[in-house]
C-alpha cells in the first residue's frame, strides 16, 4: 500500500479539536476583556494579553461584590472533596474486594450484593430521603457530609474483585508458605499488583469528585463549603447583571484546569483504565 497524504483524517480531526477548544478559548479570551464591552455584545476571540492578571485577581479575591468566598477557597474545597472521594473510594473498595475474594465469612454474598446494588441507586432517585438521613446524622453543611456518603463504590469494588480473582493460586500459596499473613499479603502483594488499576481509577474518581454538582447543591448550603462548580453556576443563575462577565469567564477557566491537568498528565493510565473499568 503506497502512502498518500491522509488529508481527510487531518481535516476531520482538526474540526473535532476546534469544536472542543472553541468554547474554552472564547471564554479564556473573554476573561481578559472589558466587561462593559462584553455586555454590549463585543466579545472577541482575540484575548487582551495586557489583562491576563484577571486570573490572578479572580483567584485571590473572586467576586467580592457578592459576598462569595474567594475563588482559591472554592478550589481548595473542590480539591479536598475530589481527593477525599478518590482516595476514600479506592481504599474502601480495595478492602471490601479483598475481603470478598480471599475470605469466607457469614453473609459474604449478601454483603457483595448489597454493595453491588448501589449502582442502581444514584442520588437522583433518592433526593429527599437522603437529605432527611443526612439531617438525622447532623451532616448537612459539613465536609464529612459532602464526601462520606459518596464513598461507596460498586464499580471500583467490581474492578478490584476482577483483578484479584485473576491472581494465580500458586502466587497466593507461595506467599503463605513464606509466612505472609493476610495484612502483609494485602500490602506487599495485592496493592503493588493492582497499581495500574489504582492509578486509572484515581483519575476517573478525581474528575468525578471535582465535577459533583447535585450532591453539594443538596447538602451544603453554607457558602463556606461552596465548590468551584457550585460557585460558578450560582453566579451564573443569580448574577446575570450583578457579576462582571469577565470575572465569571475567568472563574470558568480556572475551574476546569485542575481536572484537565490530571487527565492529561495521567492519560496513559486513564485511557487504559477507563476501558477496563467499563463504568
Amino acid at each position, binding site marked *: 500500500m503506497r502512502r498518500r497524504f*491522509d488529508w*481527510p483524517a487531518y481535516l*476531520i*480531526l482538526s474540526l473535532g*479539536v476546534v469544536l*472542543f*477548544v472553541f*468554547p474554552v478559548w*472564547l*471564554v479564556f479570551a*473573554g476573561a481578559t476583556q472589558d466587561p462593559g464591552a462584553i*455586555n454590549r*455584545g463585543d*466579545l472577541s476571540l482575540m484575548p487582551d494579553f495586557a489583562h491576563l492578571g484577571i486570573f490572578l485577581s479572580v483567584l485571590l479575591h473572586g467576586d467580592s461584590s457578592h459576598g462569595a468566598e474567594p475563588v482559591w477557597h472554592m478550589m481548595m474545597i473542590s480539591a479536598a472533596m475530589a481527593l477525599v472521594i478518590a482516595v476514600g473510594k479506592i481504599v*474502601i473498595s480495595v478492602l*471490601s474486594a*479483598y*475481603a470478598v475474594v*480471599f*475470605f*469466607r*465469612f*457469614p453473609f459474604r454474598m449478601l*454483603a457483595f450484593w*448489597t*454493595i453491588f446494588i448501589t449502582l*442502581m*441507586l444514584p442520588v*437522583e432517585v*433518592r*433526593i*429527599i*430521603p*437522603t437529605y*432527611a*438521613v*443526612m439531617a438525622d*446524622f447532623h451532616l448537612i453543611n459539613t465536609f464529612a457530609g459532602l464526601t462520606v456518603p459518596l*464513598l*461507596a463504590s460498586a464499580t471500583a469494588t467490581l474492578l478490584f*474483585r476482577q483483578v484479584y*480473582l485473576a491472581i494465580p*493460586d500458586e502466587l497466593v500459596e507461595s506467599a503463605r508458605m513464606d509466612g505472609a499473613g*493476610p495484612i502483609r499479603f494485602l500490602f506487599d502483594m495485592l496493592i503493588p499488583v493492582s497499581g495500574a488499576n489504582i492509578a486509572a481509577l484515581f483519575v476517573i474518581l478525581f*474528575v468525578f469528585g471535582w*465535577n459533583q*454538582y*447535585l450532591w453539594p447543591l443538596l447538602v451544603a448550603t453554607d457558602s463556606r463549603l461552596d465548590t468551584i*462548580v457550585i460557585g*460558578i*453556576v450560582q453566579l*451564573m*443563575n443569580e448574577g446575570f447583571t450583578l457579576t462582571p462577565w469577565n470575572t465569571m469567564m475567568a472563574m470558568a477557566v480556572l*475551574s476546569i484546569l485542575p481536572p484537565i491537568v490530571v*487527565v*492529561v498528565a495521567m*492519560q496513559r493510565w*486513564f485511557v487504559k483504565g477507563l*476501558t477496563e473499568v*467499563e463504568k
Partner: protein
Amino acid sequence: MERRTIFGGWLLPVALVLPQLLVTIFFFLLPAARAIYSSFTETDAFGLHTRFVGLDNFVSLFSDSGYRDSFVTTAIFCALVTFLALALALLLAVFADHEIRGRSIYRVLLIWPYAVAPAVSAVLWVFVMHPQVGLIGRWLNQIGINWDYTLNGSQALGLVIVAGAWTQVSYNFVFFLAGLQSIPASVIEAAWMDGARGLRRFRTIILPLLMPTTFFLLIVNLVYAAFETFGTIMALTHGGPGQATETLVVKVYRDGVINLDLAGSSAQSAVLMIIVIGLTALQFRFLDRRTLS
C-alpha cells in the same frame, strides 16, 4: 467468584468490608427504602398523620400532563444526546485510528474534555450561544435568525442537547478508539484484498466488530443523559423556559427540593429507580455474555 486458596478467620474480613457496607446501608438503602415507603403513603398538611394510599400517588403522577410531558422531553433529550455523542465520537475515532503524523497529539486534544464538569460546560456554552453576549448567539440574531433560548423552548432544548452531548464525546471516543485498535490488522488486510474499501469496508467489516462497544456505550450514554446532565440543564435553562427542558431528574428536584411535594417526588423517585434498574440489568446481562464468549 470462588478461589481455592483463602485465609481463615472471619473477624478481619468483616471489619474490612464494614466501611463500605455502612455507607451503603445508611446513605443508599435506607433513603431508597424511605422513598419507596413514602411513594405509597400520604401525609397531611401538618405532618401529623401518614396513611397508606396504595398506588394513588402514581395514578395522580401519570395523570399529570406535566409529568407526561417531562417523560417525552426526557426521551427526546436522551435519544438525541446519545445519538450525537456516539456519532461524533465514532467519526473522530475512525480517523484518529489512521496512521498519521501527530496522532497522539490529536488524541490528547480530543480526550481532555472528559474532565470538564457538565455544569461548567453549560457555562461555556452560555458565552457561545447567549442571544446578547454569546459570540454565535449574537451573530445568529444579526443575520436575522430570531435566536433566544431563554424564551424559545425548542431552541433551549436544542442547546441543552448540544451542551450535554459535547461533554460526553470524549468518553465515547476513548472506547471507540480502543475498540478499533483491537480489530486485528489481518482482518482489515483480508477485507482490503477482497476489494472492500472506504465506506464499504467500514459498513461491512468494522461496524459489526464494533457492535459490542456500541451497545455498551449506548446504555452508558442513556444513563448519562438521563441523570448526569442535571447540572448542564440547571446552569443553562433551569428546566425552562416553561417546562421545555424539564427532564425527569430536573422535575424530581424541582418538585421535591423546591416545591416540597414529598409524595409526588417520592413516586417520581420510584419511577426513576425502575428506569435505572432496567438499564443496569441490560448492561450487565450484556457484559456477562461478553466475558463468557
